[in-house]
């Protein structure tokens, strides 16, 4: 034996193995374990799914009670035929995991403030620890724990969750390191067992996304900058173009609750003086999280049967938030979009009816300023006495580092979100507790479960009665001819202005006045006009006796209602056109005003050219048009020219006015008060602002034209991004997509219609749908992003709502899984 070369070579071999088995830091992140990752038997190659893969399988589990067949149609949509509900939910869990495990797991890590566990405290410039702290302090885990109790108290919900969880775990248990989803291999961690708590966390994440938008700190700051008159002009309650969900002119009953503001509110709360240094949140839910839904009665359709349409607008991600499927059991037969992470069909239809949702957009999260006795936060001043706080310790595990503990004081209002420990960079030394509707225990799954079973209007109202948060406009249509919409949720009863700003936390009078009684929530059932609709606009006109708070886009609702009023003899084709319409009604309203105020005579020939294009634009935000680009840049620049001088009075964050505020302002009043630039001696007029902003816009337009990016599609350059924002796993630079803000086809850069669905309630249901994603979450599958190209151009797929015999006759199935008892 040659000792020296042996030892040297053995050391080199061992070093190579150790190196290739380690994560190596590069730039802001770490590589996967390259030897494992590249191994064709273990690593990413195992996730490269053959394009002709068959999904045939025969699976036996302890958790299955009867027999069930799952047929995968040509788009890989599973059609589950189970002997009983228990097996159906077990299989739904199994399928969600089989096709979407990493996504559902990752989303619950995000919701529960656990990203640092897998990502480390930061990577590529993102502080995951900061995000985790934010979610923990907001009370996401606290809220999910409360909801889990409610969910597990209801026998049907508990049974469906238990079966679902067992199904997910049956799949997880079948995995080994070679079959883990790709992202686990990339980030080098392992799937953990699913629990009902993870479903609860996922649903709380939806509450965060849909009922978590507020600007209380920004508005509190605005109070210190603007007078009351200015504030009300900048952030008005209601808009001129408002066509509320519940049509204008409705008469409301006098509220049973006393809605008078506290006696000291004018001096203490609505004072427009106080400055609060806001603690910046690491992220905010997208203000655009909205949706369209509408249902027309048989009187307006060609078939004589109702048609229901829904397209929820969310951040567009891969894997998609939706997973399409049919679940058929002896007790219900439903089809639609499901949430990986939760049992039941969420938006869809069954043998008798169809249902869908838009977001109610109500402000259900408020902050209270508290005075604590000392920095231990043991006691706070409340109703004239010191009151004891309790504590929650939230332990954040950090990959590769010691854990971090958030020691959170709990008060009558809720968790103390901000104190001297979080975040400290503004040194406010003040404490703010958060009161959020999503902190309360609630069982939303009960509603989805019951909707899956609903057969008629009464079943629908019973199904949604217990639903709390996030508040939704729940639309319904049935084969029997009923159409309906109800704004459902537990909404705090607020006096005018309550919760817009940070409230005093030492006075019980500033608490929400209970909940608005359910009987005073908007409901419309078979209205004379023949349709019901919602698009996140204000539910009621401003005479509604409770304050609505929140932020409400106005134009989509306006144009939906104008179209539906005019339409007759409607077919599903007509609905496809309406749902994918790129018509810009905001531009229709704004263009005459802009053209009225612009000083033509001062424009150069080049500027006139752009103005002519704008004048002759057909008002459609189609991908090939240049009018939308001109309008968008001009409008944004006008907003800046008009408001940025007033808003520069503070370096702290302020809420930015809505476009509708400016256009309503300048249409009504040619001496608009904010037109003047307060930093110049001259008195600027709206004519000056409109002309100056156009000249500024032309400079940018010329640059875009030089780059060949002047058409709307190229300017917008939309995309659907992977949850980890990895470009190679995303579909970026989509240049043939129209749509945008204020447009029914609400596809902005990375946000838009996440599931388009049209259901005609004929005897044999006639339904169409599509979402911008694909049935497989695996980037190595051809089904990963299979629907995106069709979705972008406004195509729909006919939804195959079939019984077992019809499925057996399908010739283009991708496979069949038979589930049976072990």
């Amino acid at each position, binding site marked *: *034996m*040659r000792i020296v*070369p*042996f030892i040297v*070579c*053995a050391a*080199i*071999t061992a070093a*190579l*193995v150790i190196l*290739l*088995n380690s994560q190596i830091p590069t730039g802001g992140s770490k590589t996967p374990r*390259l*030897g*494992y990752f*590249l*191994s*064709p*038997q*273990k*690593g*990413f*190659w*195992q*996730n*490269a*799914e*053959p*394009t*002709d893969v068959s999904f045939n399988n025969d699976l036996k589990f302890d958790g299955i009670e009867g027999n069930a067949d799952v047929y995968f149609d040509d788009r890989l949509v599973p059609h589950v035929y189970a002997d009983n509900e228990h097996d159906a939910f077990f299989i739904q869990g199994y399928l969600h995991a089989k096709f979407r495990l990493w996504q559902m797991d990752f989303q619950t890590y995000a919701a529960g403030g656990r990203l640092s566990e897998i990502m480390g405290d930061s990577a590529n410039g993102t502080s995951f620890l900061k995000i985790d702290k934010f979610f923990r302090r907001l009370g996401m885990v606290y809220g999910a724990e409360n909801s889990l109790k409610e969910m597990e108290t209801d026998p049907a919900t508990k049974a469906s969750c238990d079966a679902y969880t067992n199904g997910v775990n049956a799949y997880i248990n079948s995995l080994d390191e070679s079959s883990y989803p*790709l992202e686990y291999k*990339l980030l080098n961690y392992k799937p953990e067992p699913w629990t009902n708590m993870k479903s609860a966390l996922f649903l709380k994440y939806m509450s965060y996304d849909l009922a978590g938008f507020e600007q209380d700190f920004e508005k509190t700051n605005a109070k210190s900058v603007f007078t009351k008159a200015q504030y009300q002009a900048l952030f008005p309650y209601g808009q001129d173009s408002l066509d509320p969900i519940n049509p204008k002119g409705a008469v409301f009953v006098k509220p049973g609750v006393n809605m008078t503001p506290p006696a000291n509110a004018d001096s203490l709360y609505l004072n427009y003086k106080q400055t609060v240094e806001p603690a910046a949140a690491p992220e905010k839910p997208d203000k655009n999280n909205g949706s369209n839904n509408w249902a027309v009665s048989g009187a307006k359709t060609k078939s004589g049967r109702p048609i229901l349409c829904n397209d929820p607008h969310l951040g567009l991600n891969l894997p998609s938030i939706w997973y399409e499927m049919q679940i058929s059991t002896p007790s219900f037969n439903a089809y639609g979009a499901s949430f990986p992470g939760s049992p039941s069909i969420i938006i869809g239809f069954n043998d008798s009816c169809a249902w869908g949702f838009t977001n109610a957009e109500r402000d259900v999260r408020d902050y209270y300023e508290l005075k604590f006795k000392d920095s231990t936060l043991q006691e706070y001043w409340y109703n004239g006495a010191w009151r004891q706080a309790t504590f929650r310790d939230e332990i954040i595990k950090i990959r590769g580092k010691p854990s971090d503990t958030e020691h959170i004081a709990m008060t009558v209002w809720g968790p103390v979100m901000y104190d001297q420990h979080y975040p400290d960079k503004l040194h406010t030394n003040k404490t703010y507790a958060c009161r959020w509707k999503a902190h309360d225990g609630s069982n939303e799954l009960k509603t989805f479960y019951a909707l899956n079973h609903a057969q008629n209007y009464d079943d629908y109202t019973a199904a949604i009665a217990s639903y709390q948060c996030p508040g939704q406009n729940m639309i319904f249509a049935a084969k029997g001819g009923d159409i309906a919409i109800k704004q459902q949720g537990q909404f705090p009863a607020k006096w005018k202005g309550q919760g817009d700003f940070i409230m005093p936390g030492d006075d019980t009078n500033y608490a929400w006045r209970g909940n608005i009684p359910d009987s005073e929530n908007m409901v419309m059932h078979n209205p004379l006009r023949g349709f019901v609709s919602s698009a996140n606009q204000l539910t009621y006109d401003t005479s509604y006796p409770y304050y609505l708070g929140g932020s409400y886009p106005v134009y989509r609702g306006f144009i939906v209602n104008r179209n539906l009023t005019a339409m007759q003899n409607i077919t599903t084709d007509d609905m496809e056109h309406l749902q994918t319409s790129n018509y810009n009604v905001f531009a229709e309203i704004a263009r005459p005003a802009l053209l009225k105020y612009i000083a033509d005579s001062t424009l150069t020939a080049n500027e006139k050219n752009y103005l002519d294009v704008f004048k002759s634009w057909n008002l459609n935000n189609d991908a090939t048009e240049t009018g939308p680009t001109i309008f968008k840049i001009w409008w944004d620049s006008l907003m800046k020219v008009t408001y940025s001088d007033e808003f520069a009075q503070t370096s702290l964050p302020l809420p930015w006015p809505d476009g509708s505020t400016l256009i309503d302002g300048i249409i009504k009043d040619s001496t608009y008060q904010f037109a003047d630039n307060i930093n110049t001696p001259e008195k600027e007029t709206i004519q000056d602002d409109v002309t100056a902003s156009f000249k500024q816009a032309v400079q940018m337009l010329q640059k875009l034209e030089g780059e060949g990016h002047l058409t709307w599609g190229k300017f917008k350059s939309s995309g659907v991004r992977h949850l980890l924002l*990895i*470009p*190679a*796993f995303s579909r970026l630079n989509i240049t043939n997509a129209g749509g945008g803000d204020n447009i029914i086809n609400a596809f902005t850069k990375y946000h838009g219609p996440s599931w388009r669905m049209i259901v005609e309630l004929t005897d044999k249901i006639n339904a169409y749908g599509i979402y911008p994603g694909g049935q497989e979450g695996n*980037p*190595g*599958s*051809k089904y*990963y992003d299979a629907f995106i190209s069709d979705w972008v151009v406004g195509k729909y797929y006919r939804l195959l709502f079939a019984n077992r015999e019809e499925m057996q006759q399908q010739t283009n199935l991708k496979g069949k899984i038979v589930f049976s008892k072990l």
Partner: protein
Amino acid sequence: MKFFIAILLTALLGYAAPLYFPWWSFAVTSFIVAVFIHQKPLKAFAGGFIALLLLWGIHAYIIDNANEHILSQKIANVLPLGGASSVLILITAFVGAIVSGFAALTASFTRGKKV
């Protein structure tokens, strides 16, 4: 002949071992094969190297073809290799090969020099 048998055995065991053990278990089998089929250091290295080069290269190639390069192109952007599937296959093959080659080379020193 001995050289080819070594390659064949190394590849065969290099495939079998990771079915039950971690990805790097082929290094152990490459070592064992080279202990029993003893060759001069250069030949031993070449045998171990070529065996895994072919095993991992061909395996990755077959998977990639069946997948129509969908995933390899994405990974070749993540890593980053300019999106070239072929480069990714070559790197994959090389990583297996270099470990196996050194394992086999180590084994060649378990006996004294042949005269």
